[in-house]
């Protein structure tokens, strides 16, 4: 592979710090940001509820009110969104913790593969959850005149605003997780050649 020139096997004393040593903080920093983004998305959507009293009709002087309740549990897309973002934030937290305590356990052999595959699965789930919530939110904001579905965002405005914020946070987390996955896969390839070349040294 052409990337072998980036990492050299450790040779004795006084070797110059390579790119990998200087850029060692990139991956944990990205994981921290992705963890914060997905955590924000989960919390904002999970605590998203609104109750409003809407005046439906007026008979004489008394007005008939109806309570309009909006909860995230009403829509399966938002439930999926909360579950998947919670899963992704837990995954990022776990990977962050593993990064800092990896020298205490013998994880060097199997961990990079497991991390890459778990990253792949989580990024696929988050992309699905985020897009479903975005399209459902677009339906709530604009309605669908062909299916006679009225828009609901004019009645429950702060519910829609909080949902929008959660979707933006999840999109940021998704982009960060895609970058992290690509870095993990590339590092997996690098580490593999590094291990192979070091075992071949007589």
């Amino acid at each position, binding site marked *: 592979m052409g990337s072998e020139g980036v990492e050299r096997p450790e040779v004795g004393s006084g070797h110059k710090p390579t790119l990998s040593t200087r850029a060692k903080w990139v991956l944990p920093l990205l994981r921290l940001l992705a963890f914060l983004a997905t955590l924000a998305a989960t919390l904002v959507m999970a605590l998203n509820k609104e109750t409003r009293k809407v005046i439906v009709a007026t008979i004489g002087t008394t007005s008939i009110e109806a309570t309009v309740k909006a909860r995230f549990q009403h829509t399966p897309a938002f439930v999926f969104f909360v579950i998947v973002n919670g899963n992704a934030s837990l995954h990022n937290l776990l990977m962050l913790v593993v990064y800092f305590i990896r020298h205490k356990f013998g994880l060097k052999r199997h961990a990079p593969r497991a991390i890459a595959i778990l990253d*792949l699965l989580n990024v696929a789930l988050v992309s699905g959850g985020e897009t479903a919530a975005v399209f459902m939110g677009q339906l709530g904001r604009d309605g*669908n005149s062909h299916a006679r579905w009225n828009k609901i965002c004019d009645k429950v405005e702060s519910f829609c605003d909080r949902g929008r914020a959660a979707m933006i946070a999840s999109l940021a987390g998704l982009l960060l997780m895609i970058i992290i996955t690509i870095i993990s896969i590339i590092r997996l390839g690098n580490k*593999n050649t590094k*291990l192979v070349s070091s075992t071949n040294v007589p």
Partner: protein
Amino acid sequence: MGLDYRGRIPMLVLRLVALAATVSATLIMGTSHESAEYFGIKFEANYKKSPAFKYFVIMNAIASGYTFILSFVPAKTSYGHFVLVLDLVMTLLLDSSISACLAIGQLGKNGNSNAGWLPICSRVPKFCDNVTAALVAGFVASITYLIIVIYSLHNLINLLTLKS
């Protein structure tokens, strides 16, 4: 020389399955339409009426073209990393399109009583069946692309042997 061709067969089979799935998903969703009368108002249901279905058709069309082009690329070349990243991006896009369509389709089938949205499948049953078939094809395409990504990953770094 013979070994080279035999190594290409699994990837080619996977790409052909993905090609069939994406093409059929695009065609079924694109050609499904039905009209119904609802209290004197004509009610036409096709894929253009919902943004999620439009996104599904566009994404599956792009994926079928991409799969067709990449079927001619062998699995183990020097561009392996680049193809893997492209495959990963395509998997995510297909996954997101199927997820959005499932959300809207579930809404069309069951409605949402809390928002006052009535189900429409009882009025346009043939359209609902076509959409279900297209979603099944899209689901198969999404899973096949995930298998393609894992297989590409396995080609680049051996996943099965635990001894690196």
